[in-house]
Structure formats: structure tokens, C-alpha cells
């Protein structure tokens, strides 16, 4: 399936793009991370520590083991620091 991936904060800086269209067979968010990690060193570095990665599916925060289940927009970002 086709998903739009969006990156924020230092994840965006490390992968070098704010968003991209990706064709994936990943079943879960964690599987998608694994696919991305295998791409190149930049992605491997960006996703090296999954403890410091948060994800959202269609703009709703989810756990990394969440199924992609037809989501159109996947977002990856570090822990939030608002306020």
C-alpha cells in the first residue's frame, strides 16, 4: 500500500526530508520503521533508538506496535516538547 510519511524535528533533519510517498507491505508501524532503517545510513541513524521515537497514524498518536491498517498518513517524531 501507498502511504505518505511525514517527519518532524530531528527526525526530519536526519532523514533529510519533511515528507515522502512510500510503497510498503509493512503490517505495523514497527515493521515500517524496520523497512526504513534498511534504506541507508541516514535512516538507520534516525531510527537507531526506537525509545525516542513517537508515531502518529492519520494524525493520531499510536504505539509502535499499532497496525498500519489502511492509514494514509504516517508521522514520525521525537518525544514532544511543547508548553
Amino acid at each position, binding site marked *: 500500500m501507498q502511504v505518505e510519511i511525514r517527519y*518532524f524535528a530531528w527526525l526530519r533533519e536526519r532523514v533529510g526530508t519533511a515528507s515522502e510517498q512510500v510503497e510498503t507491505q509493512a503490517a505495523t508501524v514497527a515493521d515500517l520503521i524496520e523497512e526504513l532503517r534498511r534504506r541507508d545510513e541516514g535512516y538507520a541513524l534516525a531510527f537507531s533508538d526506537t525509545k525516542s521515537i513517537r508515531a502518529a497514524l492519520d494524525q493520531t498518536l499510536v504505539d509502535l506496535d499499532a497496525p498500519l491498517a489502511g492509514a494514509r498518513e504516517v508521522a514520525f517524531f*521525537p518525544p514532544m516538547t511543547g508548553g
Partner: protein
Amino acid sequence: MSIRVQSDAFDMGRELNDFAARVAGAGAVVSFTGITRDLGDGDLVVMEIEHYPGMTETALAAIRDQAMARFSLADAMILHRYGALAAADPIMMVATAARHRADAFAAAEFLMDYLKSRAPFWKKEVTAQGAAWVEARAEDEDALARWSPGADQG
């Protein structure tokens, strides 16, 4: 407007007066304003705040809805800036109105605790030495635990 996400500066006094006028008769109004810290030596050149347009508004509205459901409130508002901020600039504010102060105070803390760890904002500090993303603090995540079912507060 109960939820506002904007790059423009705001006047916290005016915002609070406007909010208080909307909830005239509530009895208690509590507000919190977050202000860009000086890092010492007047070092901060700029604070850049990135956010996730769309999700930000949805997340803030959900946090406000939870507060309205959980506490006995007349109203609650959240205002948060993004973009480039200077030292001593107001970053964000929350205000709550209730019949009695306990609900207004507790709801303001609830809004802040959730907003810090659950609303998609990221701060980057730019100083003369370079730029660095602000790291999330474990205490901010821990602060959420007191609002979970079974905790003796809230």
C-alpha cells in the same frame, strides 16, 4: 476561540481579560503562561518551535475536551505559538474558568501536563554556540501518571 495555534505574538493580559469577559460570573479564573527562558548570559538567540499542522489543533482540542469532561468547568482555552520566538516571549497559555478555584487550578495543571507530552510541538534552542533540540524530560511524562485512574489526585 478555545484553541488557537499561531505564529503571531500575543498579549497575555489582553487574552486573559477577553477570556474572563466570556466567562463572566464563573467565580474563578486560573491561567498559566509559558515564557521563553533566558539560558543565562543572554545566550538565547532564538527559540524555534515546530509543530504538526492539523494534528496540533486536533490534539489540543482533545486535551481540552478531556479537561471539560473531567472537571466542573465553565470554559477552558489553550493558545500556543510556533515559529521563531525571542527570549522572554510568551510561548503559550492556558486559562480555565470554574465556579470554584479547586477545579480551575486542577484543570489548568491537567491541561499543562497533557499539552507538554501529548501535543505535537518541538522546541529548538539557537544560541551563539549553535542549535540544539530541547529534550523531553522524564518528569513531564511522569506528571501524566497522577491523572490516570487509580491515582489519588484529580
